[in-house]
């Protein structure tokens, strides 16, 4: 909470008449805008998208000397000449023509003191808006370390507007900034700078816009003459040295790989204990309800529908938080841009740019923020291709599917005699690699066919090295978790309940008992038909069938058979049987088909659905490693009418490959629709991904069966 400023209030002012001052925060990317926003307004009161576009709208409120101030955070941009959605929205908000946005009373333009010339470009454009302007001179501490000093008083008098140095992380200069905001709204706006494009000596016939850009820089050079002083220091050379190592051809690549490996393994290993804690808590709630509630539809709904669904949501939070923690730290210290720089050449090869790296990397957490992050890609073609392949990156929703199936069905044996390289890890890494490779192929094909055209310009700032701001990092983590819980979470719980209902109804105990009785008869008949056969195989089969028959006569066995019959007779069972011919070549039984259908809204639902569908009774409880309820259920699953296990290694791999490539995520498809402004692209995405997933799963199962 602000210390020098009054805390934000959510109530209207005492007299009930005063409307808040609306202040827009405008600035280049990497100027500390998020830090300043957090320092001024704390947690945003509103985070969402502007209508019709997926440019983030972030608003907050604070009170300064009885003035209520509404802060609107505009996207980070370099110019007010609109050529990207971010620039469009910023300009529309500033000109008061953005739907749902209030009229702006004052523009705070952030200017990074370390690169004031470039930052003043946006300042000069903002001065022409006819709105009161306050320049917040940010990163003055970093500038001082580099030996840069800015005479802000002279700058203010030359610009005709207040220039307030701020060190947002230390809350320095916030009160003077707020004072200046309140004061300028009572004065007339500053005069627009006089730019003289006609004075530019131009033998090359540039466009008026280009001449204006040149003239603006000429104006800036005069503006800053004598204002910015540079004294040599050692700090800059330290920064240069860091940069030289991290963008070095060899060292930089190694650091990059090390950083990415650290991030990846941290999500995987460090998040595990917290996830265990969460799932343990969910299990005990389920156990508590199981023990206290009477058997019946309500208990079933709560335990198998609600608790299972909630458990399936919260278990991802540690991973999401962990990934966003790393991504925000990397972004905050300036490494994400370096990563784009290092990776650009690689992505150009498949028709993308280094800018696609960040959206694609984010897609490893979730395709939704990844797809939204594509708005930083100026070019529509690059952006569309990135959007179309982003869902192929293995997101956190797939990870539980991979982890569960790997842990349950892939032996944890050393690979190639290396004790530290385990088969489970290799399989898991392969799933991620599969997504990347397929994405590269799809992107290359798309950019050479549907989206043919010349390569796009790549012009990217490499921000200075700095310490990431804790509050900004935490806010991003909080927001990521919250948006997951509120948007994806509710959907997943809802789907879990719907799936429970579809898998539980219609429920007729007569029909179920009749089916169990039929099963018994069929088993008896098969045992009798084998009586004359003296071969060893027949003897084995006879023994198996007799065992099943014996089991059916026990109370537990009868209960398991009843549950099986109930799910076979449910709506879901019928749907699964319908598509069985389609999934049979993948090695799947109709139950897996059901789970795949039910997982359309969100991939992770597949686990919950499998749990509900394979309600096959308990297996050996003494087995320590099979303590996870679902793993036990899956391992106990057999093909209908036999003891042959459904889940073998090839089947588990086939399911993993399917989920690596499929588009079973309604939220992603909705976001693609919104982002591209057309329902064609979600349809294209769903069709091509489902097709690839089916082919991939088919090849995996058929090859796996042939080889293993």
């Amino acid at each position: 909470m602000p210390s020098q400023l009054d805390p934000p209030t959510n109530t209207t002012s005492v007299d009930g008449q005063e409307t808040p001052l609306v202040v827009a925060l405008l600035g280049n990317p990497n100027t500390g805008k998020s830090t300043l926003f957090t320092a001024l307004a704390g947690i945003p009161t509103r985070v969402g998208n502007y209508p019709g576009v997926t440019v983030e709208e972030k608003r907050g409120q604070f009170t300064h000397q009885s003035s209520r101030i509404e802060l609107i955070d505009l996207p980070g941009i370099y110019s007010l000449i609109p050529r990207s959605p971010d620039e469009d929205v910023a300009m529309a908000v500033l000109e008061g023509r953005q739907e749902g946005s209030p009229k702006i009373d004052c523009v705070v333009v952030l200017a990074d003191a370390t690169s004031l010339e470039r930052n003043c470009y946006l300042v000069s454009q903002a001065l022409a808006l006819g709105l009161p302007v306050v320049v917040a001179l940010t990163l003055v501490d970093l500038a001082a370390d580099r030996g840069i000093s800015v005479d802000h008083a002279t700058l203010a008098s030359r610009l005709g507007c207040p220039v307030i140095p701020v060190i947002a992380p230390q809350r320095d200069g916030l009160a003077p900034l707020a004072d200046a905001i309140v004061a300028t709204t009572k004065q007339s706006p500053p005069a627009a700078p006089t730019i003289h494009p006609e004075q530019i000596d131009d033998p090359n016939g540039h466009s008026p816009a280009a001449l204006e850009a040149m003239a603006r820089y000429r104006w800036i050079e005069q503006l800053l003459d004598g204002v910015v002083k540079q004294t040599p220091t050692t700090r800059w050379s330290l920064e240069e040295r860091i940069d030289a190592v991290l963008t070095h051809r060899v060292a930089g690549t190694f650091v990059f790989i090390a950083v990415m490996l650290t991030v990846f393994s941290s999500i995987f290993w460090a998040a595990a204990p917290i996830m265990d804690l969460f799932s343990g808590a969910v299990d005990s709630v389920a156990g508590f309800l199981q023990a206290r509630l009477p058997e019946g539809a309500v208990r079933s709904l709560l335990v198998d529908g609600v608790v299972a669904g909630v458990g399936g949501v919260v278990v991802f939070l540690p991973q999401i938080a962990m990934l966003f923690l790393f991504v925000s730290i990397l972004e905050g210290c300036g490494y994400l841009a370096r990563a784009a720089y290092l990776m650009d050449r690689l992505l150009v090869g498949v028709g993308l740019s280094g800018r696609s790296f960040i959206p694609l990397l984010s897609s490893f957490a979730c395709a939704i923020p990844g797809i939204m992050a594509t708005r930083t890609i100026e070019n529509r073609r690059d952006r569309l291709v990135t959007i179309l392949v982003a869902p192929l990156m293995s997101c956190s929703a797939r990870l539980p599917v991979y982890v569960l199936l790997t842990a349950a069905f892939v032996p944890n044996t050393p690979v190639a005699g290396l004790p530290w390289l385990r088969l489970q890890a290799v399989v898991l890494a392969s799933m991620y690699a599969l997504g990347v490779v397929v994405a590269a192929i799809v992107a290359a094909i798309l950019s050479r066919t549907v989206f043919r055209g010349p390569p796009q310009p790549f012009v990217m700032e490499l921000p200075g090295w700095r310490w990431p701001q804790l509050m900004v990092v935490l806010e991003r983590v909080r927001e990521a978790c919250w948006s997951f819980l509120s948007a994806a979470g509710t959907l997943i719980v809802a789907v879990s309940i719907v799936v429970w209902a579809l898998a539980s109804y219609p429920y007729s105990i007569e029909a179920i008992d009749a089916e169990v009785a039929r099963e018994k008869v069929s088993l008896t008949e098969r045992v009798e038909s084998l009586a004359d056969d003296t071969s060893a195989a027949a003897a084995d089969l006879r023994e198996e069938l007799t065992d099943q028959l014996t089991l059916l006569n026990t109370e537990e066995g009868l209960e398991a058979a009843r549950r099986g019959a109930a799910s076979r007779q449910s709506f879901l069972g019928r749907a699964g049987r319908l598509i069985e011919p389609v999934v049979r070549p993948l090695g799947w039984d109709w139950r897996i088909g059901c789970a795949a259908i039910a997982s359309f809204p969100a991939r992770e639902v597949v686990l919950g659905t499998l749990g509900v569908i394979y309600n096959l009774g308990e297996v050996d409880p003494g087995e320590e490693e099979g303590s996870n309820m679902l793993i036990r259920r899956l391992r106990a699953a057999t093909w209908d009418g036999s003891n042959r296990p459904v889940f073998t290694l090839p089947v588990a791999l086939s399911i993993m490959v399917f989920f690596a490539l499929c588009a079973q995520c309604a939220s992603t498809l909705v976001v693609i629709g919104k982002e591209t402004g057309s329902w064609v692209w979600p349809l294209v995405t769903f069709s091509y991904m489902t097709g690839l997933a089916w082919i991939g799963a088919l090849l995996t199962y058929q090859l796996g069966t042939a080889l293993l």
Partner: protein
Amino acid sequence: MTSLDRVPVGFSARVTRVVGDDPATLRLLEMGLTPGLTLRVAGMAPLGDPIELELRGYRLSIRRREAARIEVEVVETAQVALAGV
């Protein structure tokens, strides 16, 4: 007179002309790559592209393709500050 993509890493050059008149040109100008500016080629990505420039107190990366549109004259040789790295 040469183009920026041919300036070796560590060398400084003065921009004489930005060729072309499309959104990419405008973006380069907006980022401060205006005629008359002296900049330094600070580095090159591991795969040879893009390159890293130091200008107006900040670092900018552009592809060789864009760099080829920027006509420059080399003004001085490398500072040897990075010799130890």
